[in-house]
């Protein structure tokens, strides 16, 4: 949303709150801009899910996040690790739910009213089939097919309903964690950015790259990504600060407190 916490806070203060045309938006106490830009780390209780630093994470990313934890400690926060084993269900649950939603939401792209429409179709069914076959890319088609599969009769309970139950357990795990901590800290992605085109042929590997961010989407928690260092190839590393629902100001304040004492956000990767 922005290059600095102040910019994010400024934009967020405009877009937050109830939108009369959006039934999913909520009435909630106004976002506290002054608190968000205060840059306050001292006295905060921060938890790091151990499972965010487990299998598949690159050593550089792990070291950077742990170094960030030390910086938080040095500035008056308490940081400790805790177990959140439900993390391993995040990717399967998320991709089942996301694909189910995608196949339903994308069904309106049928070539009739807007968007791409196949020019070599003569019947209604041909218009549907050719428009969608020609218009969607591989990854979109893959997700539509997965979505239809997990929603199909006979598999609905085994996949979609089960994923919704896993979602609830993931939410509960966050609520439990927030009984002990003001906010959570972890990496944004298990590795630094891939080179253009790299790994695109391996969708499962690409999906696993989302492991730490799909958790918050499933649970509905606010999270902020903050630069926290560079790997051995000089590629930037991000950490995320996850907060309780509607406590955006709290995580922004911590996120701002961190760059106040580091300069990662002013550095650029060497693109060679």
């Amino acid at each position, binding site marked *: 949303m922005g290059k600095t916490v102040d910019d994010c806070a400024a934009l967020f203060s405009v877009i937050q709150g109830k939108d009369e045309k*959006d*039934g999913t938006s909520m009435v909630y106490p106004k976002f506290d801009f002054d608190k968000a830009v205060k840059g306050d780390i001292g006295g905060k209780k921060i938890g790091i899910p151990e499972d965010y630093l487990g299998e598949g994470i690159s050593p550089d990313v792990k070291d950077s996040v742990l170094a960030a934890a030390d910086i938080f400690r040095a500035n008056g926060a308490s940081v400790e690790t805790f177990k959140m084993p439900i993390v391993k269900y995040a990717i399967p649950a998320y991709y089942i739910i996301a694909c189910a939603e995608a196949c339903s939401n994308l*069904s*309106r*792209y049928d070539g*009739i*009213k807007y*968007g791409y429409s196949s020019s070599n179709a003569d019947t209604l069914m041909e218009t*549907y089939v050719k428009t969608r076959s020609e218009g969607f890319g591989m990854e979109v088609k893959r997700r539509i097919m997965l979505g239809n599969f997990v929603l199909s009769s006979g598999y609905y309970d085994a996949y979609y309903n089960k994923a919704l139950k896993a979602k609830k357990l993931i939410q509960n795990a966050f609520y439990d964690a927030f009984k002990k901590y003001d906010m959570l800290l972890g990496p944004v992605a298990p590795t630094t950015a891939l080179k253009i085109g790299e790994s695109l042929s391996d969708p499962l590997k690409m999906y696993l790259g989302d492991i730490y961010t799909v958790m918050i989407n499933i649970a509905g928690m606010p999270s902020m990504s903050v630069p926290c260092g560079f790997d051995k190839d000089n590629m930037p590393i991000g950490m995320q600060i996850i907060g309780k629902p509607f406590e955006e100001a709290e995580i922004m304040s911590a996120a701002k407190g961190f760059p106040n004492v580091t300069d990662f956000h002013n550095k650029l990767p060497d693109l060679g």
Partner: protein
Amino acid sequence: MEWEIVMGLEVHTELATKTKIFCGCSTEFGGEPNTHVCEICSGMPGTLPLLNKRVVEFAVRTGIATNCTITQNNKFDRKNYFYPICRKRIRYRNFICLSAATVL
């Protein structure tokens, strides 16, 4: 052999609301073409439905009149199918009233 006839009725009702169920467009008949339509009821990308409060009130009233149990926690289900009259290729379904039992 004795047979007992058991029948279920599917009853559709047009509610006397001033606006449509998921947007603020008028339900009045006789308007100029394309004047009672908006980005929501035409299913434009990026739009979301917003439930008409009166519809829920009417549904609850109907439910009480037909001895239904009124659901306290309520959710929408989607029914997906490709059919021309169904603009978004999705229909929404919501069970507000359960177990109607009316003696005819």
